[in-house]
Structures are given as structure tokens and as C-alpha cells.
């Protein structure tokens, strides 16, 4: 995965959500009352690493993302979305077979932008299809 910068561009619309690094910073200061060096110790990384993540210069590894979620008491999904780092299972399923490699991206592109309700419907439909075939392991 390539390194990306989540620096907000100056032309960004004012409605743009708070960058995830800034969210982490605010949470650290307001809710946790800890310094960068404090949380670096808790997370087991160098302070510059935490600072780089807060300023959008770096994206946490899979493992570090999970530690952020548990120490900062933030949902894993919020962090995954913010860092554009999907769960490993997405890559795993997408590369399971040639069919999956072709269909999963197409499926995801089609489903892009759906709200939570629509996703639930889609999941229900997928379950229905799967159970009608029968025998497919979850």
C-alpha cells in the first residue's frame, strides 16, 4: 500500500470532515489529557511516529491502528475509514480466486456510497443467496 498524505487541501470544502490525524490529536488532548510522548509510550512507538500520524504524514500499520482504537477508545471502523485502510479481510477475499479478483472490485464499486441501511439490505440479500445455494461455509 502506498503512503498517502491526508493533508487537507486548501480548496477542500468547509464541510469536509476533520482529518483522522486531527481527530486523534483532539481526542488525546481533550478526552485523554495526555501528551504525544505519553501516548507514544502507551502505543509502544517513537513520539515522532505519533506526531507524524496526527499531522497526516504517516499512516499507522494494521497493528498500530488496532492499538490506537483500543487505547483511544475509538471504533476500529472510524480509524479504518479515516486512514483508508480496509480490514485485511477485504484484500484476503478479493485475492482468493480469479473470480473473486474480478468480481469483488466490481461489486465494491457498485456498492460504493451506500448508506448503512442499504448495506444491511445487501448483506441480507447475500445471505439469502448463499443459503439458497447451501453448503457454502461462512
Amino acid at each position: 500500500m502506498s503512503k498517502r498524505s491526508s493533508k487537507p487541501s486548501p480548496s477542500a470544502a468547509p464541510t469536509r470532515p476533520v482529518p483522522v490525524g486531527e481527530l486523534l490529536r483532539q481526542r488525546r488532548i481533550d478526552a485523554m489529557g495526555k501528551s504525544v510522548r505519553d501516548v507514544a509510550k502507551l502505543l509502544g512507538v517513537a513520539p515522532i511516529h505519533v506526531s507524524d500520524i496526527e499531522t497526516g504524514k504517516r499512516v499507522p500499520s494494521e497493528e498500530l491502528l488496532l492499538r490506537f482504537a483500543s487505547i483511544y477508545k475509538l471504533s476500529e471502523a472510524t480509524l479504518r475509514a479515516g486512514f483508508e485502510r480496509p480490514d485485511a479481510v477485504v484484500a484476503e477475499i478479493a485475492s482468493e480466486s480469479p473470480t473473486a479478483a474480478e468480481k469483488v472490485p466490481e461489486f465494491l464499486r457498485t456498492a460504493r456510497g451506500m448508506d448503512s441501511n442499504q448495506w444491511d439490505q445487501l448483506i441480507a440479500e447475500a445471505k439469502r443467496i448463499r443459503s439458497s445455494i447451501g453448503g457454502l461455509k461462512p
Partner: protein
Amino acid sequence: MNAPGSDPDATSGAFGRPDGQSSSDSASLGDPPPASLHLVPLMRKVENTAWKQVLRCLESERREALCLPVPIERWVEGPLNLRLEIADLSHLDHDGHTVLGATVVSTRTIRISDRVAEQENRFRFTVAHELGHISLHAHLSGKFRDSADGEFLADRYEREADRFAAAFLVPANAFRQEFPRYAASCGIEAREMLDRVSAEDPAATKVLLDDVLPRLSKRFGVASSTALGRLRDLQLDGNRAMVMHRILRKLHARLDSGRS
């Protein structure tokens, strides 16, 4: 962690040269510093500004009493509403000077070199030094460097930021309270200790350097040399200010060489 430079309190950044305290002190050892005399009112202003910032933080957190060591990181990011970042500043090093801190006034951001992130006292002092620039010099950011006597002014601003840092981390009234307390706990009454140190009494000097200063250092979260600097700056021994000045310079040199 290897720490370049010899002075734990030396910082530098957007406002120019690193603190020249160690180098200029050794260069002019024993010289009465006429320049510092006309700086006294200026330094009083620096002291006051630092104390105002401390008060602002205490009020914002609704605290009556000062907590020690001063929680500088929490205050900078909380009540003082600044951004504090730890970054690689090695690209700012110049002419053999190691840059430990930098300030971007427009975004209210203080950047501290990751090289000092693990050095408690040095990190704290560097943050306080940069806070000094923001509190004292923000309005003239970038101006003095272009003037003919930019070098002279830059030096002055670095000294003021250092003095601010010391005053912020070791507030005068707290030091006036703590120094006699620690001196007494080491078996010498404060006034007597200052008398004997002024007379270059080796035993009292040893107690000051080996016992009192390390305890003050821990109490305030600053280097021993910073605590020693407060002894000089606050002129606890007003009558013999110049004598103390000279002797403390010597002691500074001893602290510096002892640290290696």
C-alpha cells in the same frame, strides 16, 4: 540517545541561533557583564510575561496552586492553545548548530526535534524556549534577521527565550520557596549556603552542586544548570549579586564539564 551540543538547554529554531549561553559564558568568563545590566529591566519584562502565561494556565485549569514540575506539554496544547509536534528538524541544522526546536508563528505550531524527545529536561526546556519566542517575539517574527544588527538582536532574542523558559519552568516565587527548603533539608540554611558559596567554601559548594541542585532539578523538571541559573537570575543573594554572578559562572562551567 546521542545528544549533540553540550548545553542541555540549548535550543534554536525559527528565531535563529541556538542559545549561546555555554559558549559565550566560557568566552567571557570573569568579565563583569555590563550588557546584562541594561538588560535587567528587559529581563524583568520577560519574567513577568512568563509568570502571566503560568497564571493564565492555572486560571484556565481552575487551579489555585502551582503543580510541579510545571505540566508544560499539557499547558501548551491545552490552555495556551498551540500545536506541539515532534519532528525531524535535522534539515534546519546549520553551521555546526543543532536545531532542537522551531516555531511557526502563523500556525501557532511548536516543533521539537525528535532527537530530544526522550530527554525529559531538555525536551521541556526546548518547548518552553519556543513558547518564549511566541510569547515575546511573535510580533516581530522574521523582521530582525534582515536588519544590519540582526545578529546582535538574534542573540538577544535567544537569551530572552532562554530566560522565559527558565522563568516558566522555574517560576520565581516557587523557586524562592523551594530553594531554602532544599538547602535546609541538606543541613545548611539558605542564607548561610549562599554566604559560604560566595566565599568559595568548597564544602558548601559541594553540597549545592551535589545535593541541592539535583533535587531542585528533579522538582522542577529542568537541568541542574537551569536551576543554578535561577539562583543567579533571581539574585537571592542581592547584596553580593556580582560576586554570585562570577561564582555561578564558574559553577556552570563545572556542571558543564562534569556532564560531558
